[in-house]
């Protein structure tokens, strides 16, 4: 199991990921699964250049991302998988990617979004998708940076 961190973060690669998680886990590869970024040549390029040297970044759409994640899960190389939304993770899970735990690391606030914990806000659709992930046997945890104690999503989900 080398998908060391599967993280939902609407900013994908940023300070918490590069400066904190990458070091804490000693990850050697970042796989980004995001349809919009995969389509946009400029964003793809920026994302691949944004990680520190020696850490390759791959940008995939959901279909090719699922294939790649299944492949990487069997290798010993420690990998971080990033997606913008619960929907993407759900799609990966349904495509057979073995995800034991998904980390909710960053979901910004906005209209129609309810704040769940610190910098994590959530829409009704996303709430449904996270619950579905739990039903599929993937634990959902909120852990913004590596030194935080993970909080089970279940304990924050009031059920309404």
């Amino acid at each position, binding site marked *: 199991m080398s998908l060391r961190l599967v993280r939902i*973060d*609407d*900013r*994908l*690669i*940023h*300070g*918490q*990921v*590069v*400066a*904190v998680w990458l*070091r*804490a*886990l*000693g990850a050697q590869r970042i796989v980004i699964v995001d349809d*919009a*970024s995969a389509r*946009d040549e*400029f*964003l793809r*390029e*920026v*994302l691949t*250049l*944004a*990680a*520190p*040297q*020696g850490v390759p970044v791959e940008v995939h759409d959901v279909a090719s991302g699922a294939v790649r994640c299944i492949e990487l899960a069997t290798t010993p190389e420690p990998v971080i998988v990033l997606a913008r939304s619960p929907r993407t993770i759900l799609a990966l899970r349904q495509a057979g990617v073995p995800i034991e735990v998904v980390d909710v690391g*960053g979901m*910004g*606030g*906005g209209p129609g979004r309810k*704040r769940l914990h*610190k*910098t994590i*806000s959530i829409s009704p659709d996303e709430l449904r998708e996270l619950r579905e992930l739990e039903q599929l046997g993937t634990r959902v945890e909120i852990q*913004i*940076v*590596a*030194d*935080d104690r993970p909080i089970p999503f279940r304990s924050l989900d009031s059920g309404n």
Partner: protein
Amino acid sequence: MQRKYAAAGAGLLVLMLLAATMPAAVLGASSATTSAPHQITVSFLQAALIAIGYYLANSPWLFGLAFFTLYRPLVAGFFVGLILGDPAQGTLIGAAINIPYLGFISAGGNLPADAGFAGWVGTTVALASGIDATKAIPIAFGLGLLGTIIFYSRMAVDSVFAHWADARAEKADIAGVALMNWLPGQAFLFVVSFVPVFLLALNGPSAVQDALNALPLWTVNGLVIAGGILPAIGIALNMRFIFRGSAIPYFFIGFILMTVTHGSVSLVVIAAIGLCLAYLHLNFVSRDAPLAAAQAAESTAAPVQAQEPKVRLTRGDLIRSWALWTFFAHANYSYERLQGTGFAHAMTPIIKRLYTTPDEIRDALKRHLVFFNTEPNFGNVVHGTVIAMEEQRANGAAIDDDAINSVKSGLMGPMAGIGDTLSQSTITPILLALGIGIAGGTASGSAVPTLSGATGNPLGAIIYMVLVSIVIVAIGYTAWMQGYSRGRSFVTEILKSGTIDRVLIGAGVLGNMVLGALAATFVVVNLAPTVTIAGAQMNLQASIIDPLFPGALALGLVVMTWWLLQRRVNPLALLAIYLVFAIVSAYPFFGPGQANSGDYSYGACTSSLLHQYTPCGAPPAPTAQP
């Protein structure tokens, strides 16, 4: 608009007034520090000034530089020292308190500890109650954890003010949005910052003094030992960023240089050697850095517009917008939007210039009030790029909301990743380490350099403040203007050129040298027990370890701490363990010894496991060099 600048001016004025009193205070301090630690009664006015100082450290009024300057315990210590009349000792205490926060990073609204609170309150308490710098470290660290309550209450409450800004945007009220980004948030922040710090500054010193008097002496000795052990955590946290690959040996070079010279070499000299080595390393050793000319980045610049544009932004608009961002990016930092309202605030001069109808203004304000967060200096590339897009849009180019949003949301993360790596985990800690090293001074004469007998040097705080301000502002301005004029092509070019990697690798060499030297000064582990070898009484530390490799245990502790952190041991748990270990190690296990007899005198021996400051049997540390 005018009021904002007036308020900003008032903030700067306070700082300048403080700075103006400096020369006199520094002169006065040199005589004050030669006397024994003395107690100071904190007056109402002094407590109020300290509380205002802590507020300013979290405020936008210092051109966005407060987080890099006043917020750092080194700088806080200097100003608290100024206010209480002993800047040298204040700087020394601030420097010591700062060490556990060397690896301090606050990214994306996450604050592990409030270093500013630890610095302002910790220095006040330590200076006023007359306890020394080493003992202040564990006390201040506890305060730092307490201080996060202020930050998190502010992050929660500021979300409300973001909605007030939304309401103003709905009415196309540009000035209203700008006002909502700073006035309510800052009013709230002032109250929650001022009150606790004022009360603690007033009452804390006597409370701490009473607590220390009530404790058995060996536990107080334990606090001093903890002051020598806890810095290992701060240094190791920082090592997580730079202690790797071919840069590792430089850490040991820095450490050994400091110990073999008994701390008589200044950290500026170490840094100068580090710079030379960084140059050699980049050119002759490192195979990580692409030495070949930058791969030519393909120009993806926006197509030149054929028509004469209807509205153009002036250079003044760009500078005003940049200044607003630099001041107010975090003025209303909230969980819900992070820098969202700050972004809208910065866009107000742009919106005013480009759009005229209420509908256009409203849409533009709402467009930029959404969730946003990046590193506020290097990340300015995003703002520059977005401003260029807004200008093209106002001139009729087919750029819709989606295009602007996708640039913002796509770029803010990656730019924050690079920006945080540059500013928070490379530039700031290295400059801080340099400042702390200068501030901590050194006392020569013992086998290893220690803090004992050191006289604080306010120059450490001042040099750090000036250097970090210049570097941060230069990065922010360049990124903003280049983002505007060259947009996307600037982003890809600078990333592809390898410039950033070269800066990081060079900084890694320099950083390891300085950090190693700092570890040699601030991490102190001295074994107290004495053994009898061939009939001769030999102290383990003074007679066996130090002649072989001075500071070996301290070095071992630092490397072990780094190793544990790499294996995901929680730093807070580590801190608790080290603190308990330090206090227990001061217990007089091996007979009564002198541990319970007021054993603060340097050089006297105890019957405990560890001993503070200097090894048993070593001559007392002479007074610091003039």
